[in-house]
């Protein structure tokens, strides 16, 4: 039984500025099912981040509907850890904000942190951690409130290439083992192929879903996927579709 956890129907969004208006999305329709890892790629400046803000309910569509059941966790390009808080305190931040700072949830968050290798860094400050570890801490912070769906806004783009592959692998494994639903926005085709079950290709502005592909890697890890022959075939296909 699959369950629909996020549904965009004919969504239109317009940016208004003093100089005019800009239709960011028009007739945008797609859905995400529970347990799925969906990646959205699109030409740069096509309103990918707008889409995540709409999904998270931070902005309201001008027309159409955004329906979701469940809670969100948002992960940004940079880790955005607060430098004046320890890693532990950073991970507790969403609990404090949502007034769910209960011993049970704190314990759950700490267990996650320990399980994924942050146990020794709980009392450290972000500046003492490497970029990869910081991004991992940011993911644990996102998972602390037990969200039903993770919104990932190019979460690896600020990392150097090697760290990027490792963190990508990390994030994939953590999200899989925690059985989370994830919606990834990226401009990096290979990242989308290596992580997702399904890839949506957006058109240029105003953005709508131009193509949709179910990937057939049968749950291979990102690094393993990069080694398969199918990987480059997908890359070529998506590359062409992005450049139409």
């Amino acid at each position, binding site marked *: 039984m699959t369950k629909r956890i996020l549904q965009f129907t004919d969504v239109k969004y317009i940016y208004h500025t003093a100089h005019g208006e800009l239709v960011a999305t028009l007739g945008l329709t797609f859905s995400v099912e529970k347990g799925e890892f969906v990646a959205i790629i699109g030409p740069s400046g096509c309103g990918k981040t707008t889409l995540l803000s709409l999904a998270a309910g931070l902005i309201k569509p001008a027309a159409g509907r955004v329906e979701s059941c469940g809670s969100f966790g948002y992960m940004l390009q*940079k880790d955005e850890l607060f430098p004046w808080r320890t890693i532990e305190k950073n991970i507790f931040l969403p609990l404090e*904000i*949502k007034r769910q700072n209960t011993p049970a949830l704190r314990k759950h968050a700490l267990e996650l942190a320990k399980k994924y290798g942050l146990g020794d860094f709980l009392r450290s400050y972000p500046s003492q951690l490497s970029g990869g570890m910081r991004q991992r801490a940011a993911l644990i912070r996102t998972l602390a409130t037990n969200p039903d769906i993770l919104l990932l806004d190019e979460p690896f783009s600020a990392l150097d290439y090697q760290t990027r592959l490792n963190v990508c692998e990390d994030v994939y494994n953590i999200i899989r083992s925690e059985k989370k639903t994830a919606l990834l926005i990226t401009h990096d085709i290979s990242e989308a192929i290596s992580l997702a079950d399904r890839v949506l290709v957006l058109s240029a502005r105003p953005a709508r879903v131009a193509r949709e592909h179910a990937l057939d890697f049968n749950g291979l890890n990102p690094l393993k996927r990069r080694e398969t022959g199918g990987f480059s075939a997908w890359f070529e296909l998506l590359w062409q579709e992005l450049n139409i």
Partner: protein
Amino acid sequence: MKHTKPCSAEHARFLRRRRRNIGLIWACRIGLFAALLGVWELVAALGWVDPFITSSPSRIAGTIASLYREGTLFYHIGVTLWETLAGFALAVIVGFAVALLLWWSDTLRKIVEPYIVVLNALPKIALGPLIIIWFGTGSKAIVFMTVLVGLIVAIMHVLTALIETDCNKILLMRSMGANKAQILWKLALPSAYPSIISMLKINVGMAWIGSIMGEYIVSRAGLGYLIVYGGQVFKLDLVMSATFLLCLLAAGMYFLVVLLEKVLVKNTQR
């Protein structure tokens, strides 16, 4: 930074050289001060300059001693110190509160922005006559002047720091469902913290400008009063003595704030 581990001979040499360098700098600082005083004293004693105009270290010491004997030394210091501290505290507290208010409401901030810019540009001393008429000739007028000088600086400093809060971090907070008060307490204020401390440092200087300027316009006591009075009756010894005391007080207060900064910033470990 304690070196408990045994260190290499090279490192020991580095440490020794560093210590020697610091010692040299301090020796030169103190030596320079002594030399300045010595030359000043000497040219006055030899009559190369008229000590009536330039005063001299010994005459300054004598003047301070006689002020002490008359029992007015600490009275004047106390008056100025009180005015400065009261003005400083009021400017900082009110400035902080106004900055929070203006951060809270964008519209309000845009409305009052031109007023703040004009008030900031206005030389506060132009308000001297008004202040005398409104607040009389006592300490109240001087405290008000001090507040005037420091207030706008405090507002602008804190407000700028709050507005410069990283917008991605705000986005993150909002995605967690944070309300404005939570964004303020958990994000904007902590990230503005270094600027708030530096605002305190700047406002110490502002408070001294305000209180001495206030005493120039209207006063019957205080170090600023001694300077103006000494100038009017041509007692340059008095002018120099009061200026010297002012140097000591201002430097003392500045170091206190620097010390406070060290303690506060250390506690937040950035």
